[in-house]
C-alpha cells in the first residue's frame, strides 16, 4: 500500500475527519486549524454515514486501476452533519440518480494495483431512495 494511503486509511475506511472543540465545526478531510474560529484544538470525529447528493458527474474514461468500472459516477454528498465530501456512487443505475437522493456509505474496493499488487479499500456511496 502506498505509504500516503496507509497514513490516511482511517479517513477512507471510516470517514474519519475532525471536530473543533471550541466551536464544534466538523471537517472532512481533517484540518489543522479550525476554519471558522481559528482554534488549533481539534479532535478526531467520524462523519455520519448518511447524507444526500448535491451534484454528480459521470466518467466514461477512467484512470489505470479503475478499468472495468466505467462508467463511474462521482458525486458530492452533503452528509447529515453538513460536511460535503466527494465520493463514488455505486450500485445505482444512472437513470435512477437524482440531485437530493439520500445515500449511505458502503465499504468497497477503490482500486487494485494489479493482480499481484495491493488492494485499496475505502468508502463509497449507495443510493437509498
Amino acid at each position, binding site marked *: 500500500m502506498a505509504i500516503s494511503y496507509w497514513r490516511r*486509511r482511517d479517513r477512507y475506511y471510516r470517514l474519519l475527519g475532525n471536530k473543533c472543540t471550541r466551536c464544534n465545526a466538523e471537517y472532512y478531510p481533517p484540518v489543522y486549524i479550525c476554519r471558522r474560529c481559528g482554534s488549533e484544538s481539534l479532535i478526531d470525529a467520524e462523519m455520519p454515514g448518511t447524507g444526500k447528493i448535491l451534484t454528480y458527474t459521470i466518467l466514461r474514461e477512467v484512470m489505470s486501476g479503475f*478499468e472495468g468500472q466505467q462508467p463511474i459516477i462521482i458525486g458530492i454528498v452533503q452528509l447529515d452533519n453538513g460536511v460535503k465530501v466527494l465520493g463514488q456512487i455505486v450500485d445505482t443505475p444512472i437513470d435512477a440518480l437524482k440531485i437530493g437522493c439520500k445515500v449511505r456509505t458502503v*465499504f468497497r474496493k477503490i482500486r487494485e494495483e494489479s493482480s499481484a499488487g495491493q488492494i485499496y479499500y475505502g468508502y463509497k456511496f449507495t443510493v437509498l431512495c
Partner: protein
Amino acid sequence: MPLNNSLIPFKGWVNFGLKTPKNAAIAGYGVYIPRYRLPSVEVARIWRGGEEAPLIKKAVASLDEDITTMAVEAARRAIKMAETKELGAIFVGTETKPYAVKPTSTIVAQALNQHKVLASDLEFACKAGTEALQLILALIGSGMIESGLAIGVDTAQGRPGDDLEFTAASAAAAYILSKRDVGSIAVVEGASSYVSDTTDFWRRAGQQYPRHLSRFTGEPAYFYHIQHAVKNLFDEFGYKPSDFKYAVFHQPNPRFPVEVALRLGFNLEQIKPSLLNPYIGNPYAANSLLGLAVVLDEASPNDLILVCSFGSGAGSDALSIRVLDGVEEKRRKAQNKVRDMIEASVEIDYATYAKLRGKIVA
C-alpha cells in the same frame, strides 16, 4: 465407528459434546448479501444448451466487492445491533481471501476501529464461520475476552460450466458474542464437531477454481459428517428433533438440507424458514450462519434452534442455540432483516456476471 465414510449403518456414537460456556451469548448479528442475482437458467443457457435448470438464483458480488468489503458491511450491522463498543477478538472464516498472505481480519479490525484484538483468518471450506463462532465463545468463556466478532464470508468460485457455477455465491454473516446479560439474543447450549479426512472438494494453492468429486460430495461427505455431528449432539445433551423449533443445515443446493433433515427426524416446518439456497445460492462459509440469522429474525424467546454446518475436507459443527428475551428489542432497534436484503436485488445476465466476477477482463 467406521472412518472410511462408507455406507455402513452407524453402530454407535462417540460422546464428544463441546462444553460451551453458559456465560457467553450472541449479542448481535448482521448479514450482507450483494444485490446482484444470477438466475441458474442463465448458466444453463450458456453452458448446457438451455437445458432445464432449477429455479434458483445466486447472489453475485460486484466488481468492487470482495470478502473484506462484505465482512466489514456485515460486521458493522452486527455491532450496531449489539451496541458493542470494544471487541477482544475478530475471526474471519473464509476460503476466498483476496490476499493469499495478509490477514483479512486486520483490514476488518481497522475498518471497525478495533485494535486491541486477537485477529485471525480461518479456513475450513464452508464451515469456517461456525468455527469462528465457537472460538469466540471459548475465549469469552475462558475469561480471556469480554466480547468478540465471528464472521463467515465468501465470494465462492465455480469454474465456468461446472455444476458449482449454478450455486457458488457471495455473502457474509457476522455475529457479536459477549458476556451474557439481559440484552442477549441467544445462548449456545451445546456443540459437537465431527471431522474426517475426506477429499470431496478442494482447491490447490495457486488455483483459481476448486475441484470436486461430484456425487461423492453427498453421501460420504455432506450427509456422513452432518449426521455424525447432530447425532453426537443429541446423545451428549439428550436432545430429540422435536425439541427444536427450527433446524438450520448447510445448504449447498436446495435438495441436501431437506434430505438430511428428514433423515435425522426433523420435519419440513422446522427447516423451511432457513432455506435460502433458492434465493441466494451457496455463499460457502456464510451459508449456515445466514440460515441462523434469517431464523433469528423471526424466532421467539425460549425457541431452540439447531444449526449444523458442513465444510468439505471434511467436517461439521452442530450447535444447539436457545433464543433469549433480548432478541425482540434488538431486532426492533436494528430494523435490518435478512429477507429485506434478499428482496433488494437486481437480476443480471451471464455476460454481466462474467465481467463482475473477473471471468472476462479488459
